[in-house]
C-alpha cells in the first residue's frame, strides 16, 4: 500500500479540514471542492516525501510547491484569484502539533524541548512559505504583458 491506514485517515481529514476552512473563508461555492482537494494533494506530497526519506524540511518545501502549483492551475482554469485556492490548500501543512508542544513544554519548564519544537515549527513555516514563493516567482517571470488573467 502506498499509504498506511493511519495516513489514509490523515489524508481524508486533510480533505475535510481544508474543505471546512474553505467554508470559513467564504470561498465561492464552485471553488470549494478544488480548494479542499488542494489540501489533500499537498498533504499527500508531504507524506510521499517523508516516505522517500527526505526529511520534514524538504517535505514542507515540496508540498508548499505542490499546493501553489495546484492553486495556480485552478486559478487559471476557473478565473479566480490564486489566494482563494492557495490558503485552503496550505492549511494541513501548518505545524499545529509543534505549536502546541512548544507551548506545553514552556509551561512545565522544559526549555530544551520547547526550543526544539519551536525550531521545527518556525523552519516548517519558512520552508512552506519558500515553496509557495518559488512558484509565485516562477509565474511572475512568465506573466504576459497586460494580461488580466488570474493573478
Amino acid at each position: 500500500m502506498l499509504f498506511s491506514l493511519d495516513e489514509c485517515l490523515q489524508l481524508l481529514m486533510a480533505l475535510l479540514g481544508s474543505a471546512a476552512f474553505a467554508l470559513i473563508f467564504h470561498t465561492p461555492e464552485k471553488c470549494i471542492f478544488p480548494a479542499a482537494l488542494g489540501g489533500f494533494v499537498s498533504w499527500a506530497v508531504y507524506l510521499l516525501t517523508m516516505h522517500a526519506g527526505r526529511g520534514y524540511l524538504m517535505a514542507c518545501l515540496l508540498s508548499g510547491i505542490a499546493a501553489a502549483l495546484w492553486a495556480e492551475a485552478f486559478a487559471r482554469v476557473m478565473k479566480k484569484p490564486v489566494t482563494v485556492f492557495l490558503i485552503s490548500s496550505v492549511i494541513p501543512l501548518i505545524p499545529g502539533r509543534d505549536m502546541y508542544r512548544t507551548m506545553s513544554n514552556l509551561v512545565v519548564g522544559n526549555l530544551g524541548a520547547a526550543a526544539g519544537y519551536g525550531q521545527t515549527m518556525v523552519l516548517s513555516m519558512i520552508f512552506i512559505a519558500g515553496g509557495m514563493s518559488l512558484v509565485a516567482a516562477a509565474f511572475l517571470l512568465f506573466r504576459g504583458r497586460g494580461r488580466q488573467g488570474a493573478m
Partner: protein
Amino acid sequence: MEAAGIPGMLMTEKYRVSGRDRLPDRRNEAMTETMEQTAPVIPAGEEDALLQRILDIGDLMLQSGAEIGRVEDTIARIGNAYGAEMDVYVIIYSIVVTMQYPGGRVLTQTRRTRGRDDMEFDRLDRLNDLSRRCCANPMTVGELAAEIDAIRSLHKSRLPHIASCMLAAFAFSLFFGGRPADGIAAAAFSLLFVLLQGILSRYSTNRIFYFLLVSLGVGAGIGAFCRLTGALFNEELVMIGVIMLINPGITMINAVREMIVGNTISGALRLIEATIWTIAMAAGFMLAIHITGGIA
C-alpha cells in the same frame, strides 16, 4: 547626461529623477495600450471621487485577504483604464496613490486600512471581477460606487460559519491522531471559541488581547473538562483541534511569503505582529493550564 540605471548617483542638472526612468514598469504598460484607443475621460470634477472609489476597492481587497502585490496591481490597472499614470504604494496599514492625468492634473490620496488578517474569498473574487470589468469598460464614478457598496454589504449568515468551525476542529483533531471522541470534544469547544470570537471581536480593538483572552477561555474550558472527565479524552488532541482555528500560523506563512516576493516592509510587519499574537496565544494557554492544573 544621465546614465541609465544609476540615477541619483551622478550630479546632473535634473535634480529630481523619476523612479519610472529606472526600471521597466509593467504597471504602466497597460496605460500605453489604453491611450492608443480612445481613453474615456470622466468629468473633471469627479477625479477626486474616482480616486476615493479606487481606494475603497484597495481597502476592501486588503480586508478580504489579498496579497499586497495584487492590491497594488489592481489599483494601478483601474487607474490606467481611466487614462491616468499611477504610482501606488501599499502596506498592510496604508494605501498611498498618486494619479497623474494626461491634462497635467495630479492627485494624491491616502487611506489608513485596518490591517486585519481576515479572509473573505467571495468578496475578493467579486472585487477582482469588478476590477476586470472596470478595466475592460470603465464605469462612471456613480456606477463604481454602487458596485462597491453592493460588495461591501454582502451579508453572510452565522450558521454555516459555526458549522464549518466545528467541522474544522473535528477534522484536525483526528488529523493529528485523535480518536473520534476527541474530535467531537474539539468540535464542541470550537463553539466556545466562536462565542468568544464573536464577543471579543466586537469589543476589543487590540488583537493581542483578543488572542490572549480567547486562548485563555478555550484553554481553561478544555483543561477543566479533561480534568473532570478523567482519562477519557486526550487533552492535547482536543486542544490542537481548536488551536488550528485560533492560530495565526497561516498569517505567519503569508507574512514570510510577502517578504520573499519583495514586499519586505509589509511582510516583516505582519510577521512581527503574528509572532506577538502567537506569544499572546501561548501565554493564554499557559495561564489556562496553570488555572486548571489547580482544579485537579
